[in-house]
């Protein structure tokens, strides 16, 4: 099918480029997944502000940020991992284990100034374990991280059992949800902005970032192009583990409670947001702005529905529908475009039978 439609597509595209390349390029940009997600985000923000009372208030915006912060943080390195055609399902368990260890160390009497770096270091180590199993042992990351997901969550229970540690100092727990003095922007918003900037620059403005796409598109080719695929993948897992630990510290302080079952099943929300943001599950495609829009879209819809006192349960279905529509829609538009191209080809063939007859063999050999 693809072979037969090629010449007609070429004709159509050449004509369009000749006419006006700027609008074509603009059109192409608007047709990207990122643009669709950002558009959907804007529409949902607008609808929510109009329909839901007290949605568009600074106070609610602050809450929204606090709610999405953990998913948003982890989604950043997860994007990088998925672009290299791997996945890390153990992030929520890393978060839980960090929380449990944090609680246990605090009970043991260590100051939080010592605990926080220790926890980040542990996160890096947990990520490195995933990375080593994937890169050195050559195991599929999907299976490895399902394994470590169970193992890390299990260790969290071993460390803390079903107890909860809640006596963290107020200066820390209210500090993490507090605002930047003089404004209504929570601190965590600034942290997220900083992290997003760092990861965005890493992915979109450095050779390493380009390399991640190359690895995802074709690891063999990337290796022959001189990239140390294994090292890079290993570091991506280390990065993910570290950020997941950071999210664990945030989660523990935000809810003032260290528990082994903190953020259970959060990995599914993270992966859903990343995929909604237009990152291909097969690697090699996607961008950070799209993912951030995906996280905010999920966050704002659930926030608005909650304010409108729609049951928590309806949210679950909306999350799933959104994810399915976001992947099915582009596939269907592709199909429709293919059909239209076929029809255009039939028209061209009907109008000038001689040209197509001479062109067709060329198209065939090219394809």
């Amino acid at each position: 099918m693809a072979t037969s439609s090629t010449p007609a597509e070429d004709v159509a595209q050449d004509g369009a480029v000749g006419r006006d390349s700027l609008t074509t390029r603009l059109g192409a940009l608007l047709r990207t997944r990122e643009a669709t997600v950002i558009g959907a985000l804007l529409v949902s923000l607008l609808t929510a502000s109009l329909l839901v009372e007290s949605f568009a208030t600074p106070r609610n915006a602050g809450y929204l940020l606090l709610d999405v912060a953990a998913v948003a943080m982890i989604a950043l390195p997860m994007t990088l991992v998925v672009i290299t055609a791997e996945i890390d399902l153990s992030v929520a368990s890393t978060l839980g284990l960090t929380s449990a260890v944090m609680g246990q160390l605090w009970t043991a009497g260590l100051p939080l100034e010592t605990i926080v770096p220790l926890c980040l270091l542990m996160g890096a180590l947990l990520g490195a374990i995933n990375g080593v199993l994937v890169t050195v042992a050559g195991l599929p990351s999907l299976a490895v991280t399902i394994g470590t997901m169970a193992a890390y969550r299990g260790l969290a229970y071993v460390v803390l059992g079903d107890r909860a540690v809640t006596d963290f100092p107020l200066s820390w727990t209210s500090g993490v949800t507090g605002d930047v003095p003089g404004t209504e922007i929570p601190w965590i918003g600034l942290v997220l902005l900083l992290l997003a900037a760092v990861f965005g620059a890493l992915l979109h403005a450095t050779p390493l970032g380009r390399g991640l796409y190359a690895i995802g598109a074709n690891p063999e080719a990337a290796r022959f192009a001189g990239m140390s695929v294994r090292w890079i993948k290993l570091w991506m897992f280390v990065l993910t583990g570290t950020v997941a630990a950071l999210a664990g510290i945030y989660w523990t302080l935000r809810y003032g409670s260290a528990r082994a079952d903190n953020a259970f099943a959060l990995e599914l929300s993270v992966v859903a947001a990343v995929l909604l943001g237009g990152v291909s599950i097969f690697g090699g495609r996607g961008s950070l702005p799209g993912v951030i829009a995906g996280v905010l879209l999920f966050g704002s819809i659930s926030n608005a529905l909650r304010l409108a006192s729609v049951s928590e349960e309806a949210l679950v279905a909306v999350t799933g529908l959104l994810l399915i529509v976001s992947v099915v829609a582009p596939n269907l538009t592709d199909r429709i475009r293919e059909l239209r191209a076929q029809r255009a080809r039939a028209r061209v063939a009907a109008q000038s039978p001689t040209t197509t007859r001479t062109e067709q063999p060329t198209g065939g050999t090219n394809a």
Partner: protein
Amino acid sequence: MTEAPDTRTPQPGSAPARRGNGRANRRLPLARETGLVLAIAALVAVTWLYNPLFLSEQSVRDILLGATLLTILAVGQATVIVTRSVDLSVGSVLGLSAFGSASFLMAFPDLPFVLGIGVGVTVGAACGVVNGALVAVARVPALVVTLGTLYVFRGVDYWWASGSRVDAADLPETFLGIGRQSVLGVPVPALIAIVVVLAAGHYLRSYRSGRELYAIGSQPAAARLSGIPVDRRIFGAFVLNGSLAGLAGVLYAARFGSVDATVGTGMELEVVAAAVVGGVAIFGGSGTVYGAALGAVLLSTIDAALPVLQINQFWQQAVVGLLILLAIGLDRLLAVRAARRLRAGRHHGD
């Protein structure tokens, strides 16, 4: 995620290597299943020596009943994974079907309970049709689709139940009897699970369409070129898996009697874990439902044995995690060794 096509696969045409490959393929899964049986036997023996009550009639019944649901789900999951797909929605399908069959029987207590089973299996099959259509027709990656339907089916379940629950008192005795009766000391649900395992195993091993599932999983493009109706087979695998998840939901309702909208939450990853421990390769093309079923039995036996061995119950999940890593590590080791043997064999063949 995607994996580069296996470059180690012997070229067609080198006959000795091909025969060697066939032998290795036959030997490896068998080794896995024997290993699992030995592991289960060793675990049971150690636990029994520690506390002979572990093999009392009641306790054996509980272990068998505990393994039933996971086994049925693992069999369905293995069928899907073999085609290089995955179904993450099974926990939600189980919940939906459990609630569906229970509330059907609550509404029509006079109808024969078999209809309740039919309703549950139909609900499961319908979910499978949705998954299969999205994967096979819309050509969306199974991991993404079923992650989405995991939420959607659960949402439908919540909406349907809207906070209510069905209790054992609302259900006909005949239906609850499925979960309580035994034939020759084996609980009925366990018998159903054994039938499912044997039937699915026979289908995958001896039927043409069953073999085609393996062909699709090991090389989808080649399967398409050789005329296998790839989309229809994948669709079929999802419908089969959905129906089995539906059956598991019915058995859940019959055994526990009380069903709300949260039944089966988080079960999907345990099911995938059972299949992986059972030697079903996550990228398709190899593994048997017998292995997956044994993996499920091993995981449930660990669940049952840890408290008896007075090991802190909190270790259970950590042990399961290590077991998964061990299983895939072992698979990798065996694959590397088999590849090395094949290379050596090809040299001799030349």
